[in-house]
């Protein structure tokens, strides 16, 4: 429609969506697995209990009335809910689409048939951390690899979109080449995503066994960058060694060439999630994101989501993170990467420093280099 027409009622002028586009719902606090690096379990601020279906259905009605486009069903393990079909009916009835974050182990033919029949399932993301049971099961438990692959094949058979995420840790860092071959060549997936185990939840108690040390991190970065080139666009990352490797190469190149600051550089600009997304814990508490589960914004069916979305001081503070300069942090004092750095994920920053409005030490290039890392 022509842009020159003037609306007599006047436009909104904020970059924030008027309502969230996507809502992540931790639909259950139960899981059939106990992964050693799980970010979800062992978070002292979370009350691990499930809400009855009618609470979620009422909430989905609210989401529908706000024009939310997609509900991401997470957990725990979302397929563990016995009343899942009822919940999905509630999403479909409210003109929304949905997706799952799953370990894949509880997906039956009947479930896949049902998902396909709705026509509204964007994808089921299944975690696969190894090219074989020995590697995958090392962190996720015996039998979990076979179950995940069975789940993926079941979804494929029924034409439900599958996304795979590989979380990189000490036990699979030497298996990355095989993982890529297995997922892309053998399973025939169009692509897969990668991230890394982070210092959150259960991982805090297993950090020494799970988190990559500096040598492994270098290896993961180099291998993933090589594989991403080899498989041309079929391996992606928003976080973890591949994302860091790509970002840090750009930063190093810019620094050595004394290039102008990046558009988003020099401030805590990394996270834009709060402009279009929000999340809900299994106990019904509304939070900005699953990685910031301690920031309680309200409770479903007690507090208006629209009100929280538009007026929550906590959300607005997160949205204004991009105005905080890195030069003001003692942590960044004297760093020559400041014009090119975004400070990275606030969830990880909080997990490591106890402060949300802080750069994440995990994604700090200067620290990585100081500890012996290199950018090749």
């Amino acid at each position: 429609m022509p842009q020159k027409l003037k609306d007599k009622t006047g436009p909104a002028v904020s970059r924030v969506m008027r309502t969230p586009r996507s809502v992540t719902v931790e639909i259950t606090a139960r899981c059939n697995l106990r992964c050693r690096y799980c970010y979800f379990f062992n978070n002292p601020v979370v009350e691990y209990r499930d809400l009855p279906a009618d609470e979620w259905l009422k909430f989905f009605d609210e989401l529908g009335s706000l024009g939310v486009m997609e509900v991401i069903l997470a957990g725990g393990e979302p397929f563990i809910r016995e009343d899942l079909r009822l919940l999905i009916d509630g999403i479909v009835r409210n003109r929304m689409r949905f997706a799952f974050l799953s370990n894949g182990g509880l997906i039956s033919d009947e479930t896949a048939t049902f998902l396909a029949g709705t026509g509204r399932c964007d994808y089921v993301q299944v975690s696969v951390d190894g090219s074989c049971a020995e590697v995958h099961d090392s962190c996720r438990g015996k039998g979990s690899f076979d179950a995940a692959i069975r789940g993926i094949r079941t979804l494929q058979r029924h034409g439900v979109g599958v996304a795979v995420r590989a979380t990189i840790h000490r036990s699979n860092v030497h298996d990355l080449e095989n993982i890529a071959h297995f997922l892309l060549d053998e399973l025939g997936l169009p692509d897969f995503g990668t991230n890394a185990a982070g210092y959150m939840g259960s991982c805090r108690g297993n950090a020494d066994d799970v988190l990559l040390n500096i040598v492994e991190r270098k290896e993961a970065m180099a291998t993933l960058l090589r594989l991403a080139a080899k498989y041309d666009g079929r391996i992606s990352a928003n976080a973890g060694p591949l994302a860091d490797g790509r970002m840090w190469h750009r930063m190093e190149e810019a620094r050595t060439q004394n290039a102008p600051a990046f558009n988003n550089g020099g401030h805590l600009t990394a996270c834009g999630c709060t402009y279009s997304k929000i999340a809900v814990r299994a106990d019904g508490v509304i939070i900005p994101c699953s990685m910031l589960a301690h920031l309680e914004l309200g409770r479903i069916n007690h507090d208006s989501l629209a009100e929280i979305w538009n007026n929550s001081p906590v959300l607005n503070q997160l949205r204004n993170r991009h105005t905080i300069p890195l030069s003001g942090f003692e942590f960044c004092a004297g760093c020559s990467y400041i014009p090119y750095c975004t400070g990275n994920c606030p969830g990880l920053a909080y997990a490591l420093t106890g402060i949300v409005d802080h750069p994440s030490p995990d994604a700090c290039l200067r620290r990585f280099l100081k500890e012996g890392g290199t950018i090749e």
Partner: protein
Amino acid sequence: MNQTDRPIANSIVVLREEFDDWAVLFNSDTADAVGTNPVGVAVWKLMNGKRSIEDIVSQIRKSFGDVPEAVSKEICTFVNTLADNGFVGLALESK
């Protein structure tokens, strides 16, 4: 039953008014989305199966200032695009 020339919005389509004047029409069955401006939003809201395109154009002229001559053609194109993508149908004649 015969079709009329009165467009009717597909009830499965969600209207999301976004920031900076923009809105999105989202078809949750197909995951297709069409971005539009405030005039498109007004047109969308007027497509109730009771108004012809001419009725809609004249309503838009009343609601917006500085309306150029070409608006009628632009609204026709917009409605046709939506119809091609299954966002809009034509109302049926009532008996």
